[in-house]
């Protein structure tokens, strides 16, 4: 059944739509983190449409696989993919970061129950994922746990506490993805606090390391397939990505990390880059988009 889904799913189309939603919700919220959301979305698309065992009708199904976005600031990506996967209605996106509305500026299990845990303080989601993997195994439940970290996030000491812990407990039900976009908040990761050589670091902590292009679905699929078959040790997937991927003026530019207010012309350019067509533009733009699109086209 899973293979069947795989053949049918057009990951690129889904991710492209998700990227549009990311941009739209950040525009609407007048703040948010586009760069790290756009770099992460291809892996998230594959996870939510292929890899994770979940039932959108029963988000609290006990047997579900868990996904934690430890780099919680990239939650626009999580929210967008949740809408597409049917975990929540699209309307909620327009309340992102707004008072009294459920979609918090960082993921929160208390207001969005399908979110597995609250994140936003870098490093913590990783440890929580280890706790879930340990707890599931303790109860001999077969579900798997996936967690995505940023590369800058790896500078947190807690990450290396966890990096020692998960192989010690032989948590082969745990799969970590590092969104290796080479950038963090203020600058390139190598200028802030260099991480290299990263692969040997994880290997020396007894992890199985798989290195991929995080925008290539064949490579993403193969990495997750391999990870499922590794016994006795957790897996980390180093997913090389481009921060801001898909929006020309955001790609590889640390100034689109966040928390940015998008101008209308930037919104329009971004949506055009992402292949949006005027007829499917969101109603909240009140017609201004359509005119804008004509004026600002390329």
């Amino acid at each position, binding site marked *: 059944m899973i293979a069947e889904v795989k053949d049918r799913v057009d990951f690129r189309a889904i991710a492209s739509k998700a990227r549009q939603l990311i941009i739209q919700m950040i525009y609407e919220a007048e703040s948010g983190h586009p760069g790290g959301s756009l770099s992460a979305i291809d892996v998230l698309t594959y996870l939510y449409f292929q890899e994770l065992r979940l039932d959108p009708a029963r988000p609290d199904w006990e047997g579900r696989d868990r996904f934690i976005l430890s780099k919680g600031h990239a939650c626009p990506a999580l929210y967008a993919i949740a809408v597409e996967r049917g975990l929540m209605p699209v309307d909620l996106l327009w309340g992102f970061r707004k008072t009294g509305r459920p979609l918090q500026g960082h993921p929160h299990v208390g207001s969005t129950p399908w979110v597995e845990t609250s994140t936003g*303080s870098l490093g913590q989601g990783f*440890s929580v994922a*280890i*706790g879930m*993997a340990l*707890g599931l195994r303790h109860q001999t439940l077969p579900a798997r746990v996936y967690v995505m970290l940023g590369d800058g996030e790896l500078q947190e000491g807690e990450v290396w506490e966890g990096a020692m812990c998960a192989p010690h407990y032989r948590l082969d039900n745990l799969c970590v993805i590092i969104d290796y976009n080479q950038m963090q908040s203020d600058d390139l990761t190598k200028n802030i606090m260099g991480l290299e050589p990263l692969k040997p670091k994880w290997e020396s902590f007894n992890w199985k390391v798989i290195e991929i292009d995080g925008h290539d679905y064949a490579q993403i699929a193969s990495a997750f397939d391999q990870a499922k078959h590794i016994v006795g040790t957790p897996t980390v997937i180093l997913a090389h990505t481009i921060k801001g991927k898909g929006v020309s003026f955001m790609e590889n530019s640390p100034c689109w990390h966040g928390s940015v207010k998008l101008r209308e012309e930037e919104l329009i350019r971004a949506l055009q880059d992402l292949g949006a067509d005027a007829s499917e533009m969101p109603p909240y733009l009140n017609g201004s988009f359509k005119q804008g699109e004509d004026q600002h086209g390329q």
Partner: protein
Amino acid sequence: MNNRPQLIGSSGDSLREAFGRALVRLGERRHDFVVLDADIADGTGTHHFKKKYPQRFFQFGIAEQNMMAVAGGLASVGVIPFVTTFAVFCMRALEQARLSVAYARRNVKIVASHPGLDVGPDGASAQALEDLAVFRAIPGMVVVSPADPLEVDQATEAILNYEGPVYMRTGRSAAKRIFDAGHRFELGKGQILRDGGDVTIVACGVEVARALEAGAIMEQEGISTRVVNMPTIKPIDVELLIQCAEETGCFVTAEDHNVHGGLGSAVAEVLAQACPCPIEFVGVRDSFGESGEPEELAEKYQLTGPWIAEAARRALGRKATQERLIRMSSPLAI
């Protein structure tokens, strides 16, 4: 309430050991909890549990931040974790307790040994005098500090039965025995251990035995002193505090903790709103501790029974002044 003179004998036991044995006792009946340690099971009392239930004992090494957030993950899949380390190291993982435990509203029990000057010779680096304040400030976090080994045993069961995040202090040194088997710990409730009408002393942890001592000193001076054990600092027993304010009109709070933010502050918050009256605060006066024997430190930092009695005299003096002023300003007095 109970007017019998309380037993303040040596229990020959510490609160941490009592906690460790309570875990073993509860572990037999309850299979839904596990114990997390960061290389100090011998110090926190959890070595008893480790020995009896090795499959339910998880070692994290000297890595408290990871351990605390792992606890959040365990709880989210239905396993109840007791996270155990020294109180100072719980503060190292404070932000993990805030986000991955409290904000996510996880059923995690954080149990901290080695609080306060009671730690003794290890000195200030190990003497947590701020933990009650910082954990109390976390929304939804229940904060408990039992007074003797029996109460620790009952409190351990009570926090396990409670669904939600809890921070509980145990203690390092040999504890006084205060309660007999008739004692019933109830989360959120204080008890009057010794009745009196002139002044109320509210205490928690090791200070409860010292407060009882102060009560006895005051009685010899003919001052009728009420002593309240307040093992739940949050949510605090508002009803009992208001009752004591109405019946005695002035207070002393006593805790092995900074005077800022702990039990004294919790009591003052209630009284300032509900029925303002004089309060004196016994605690460490905004400083760090130092090495020494716990009893010597308690004397030096003015936490002992006689110092509590001295604070009670001050509270009484302020109450009398206030009453005089009220009489003077009342039209009937003219």
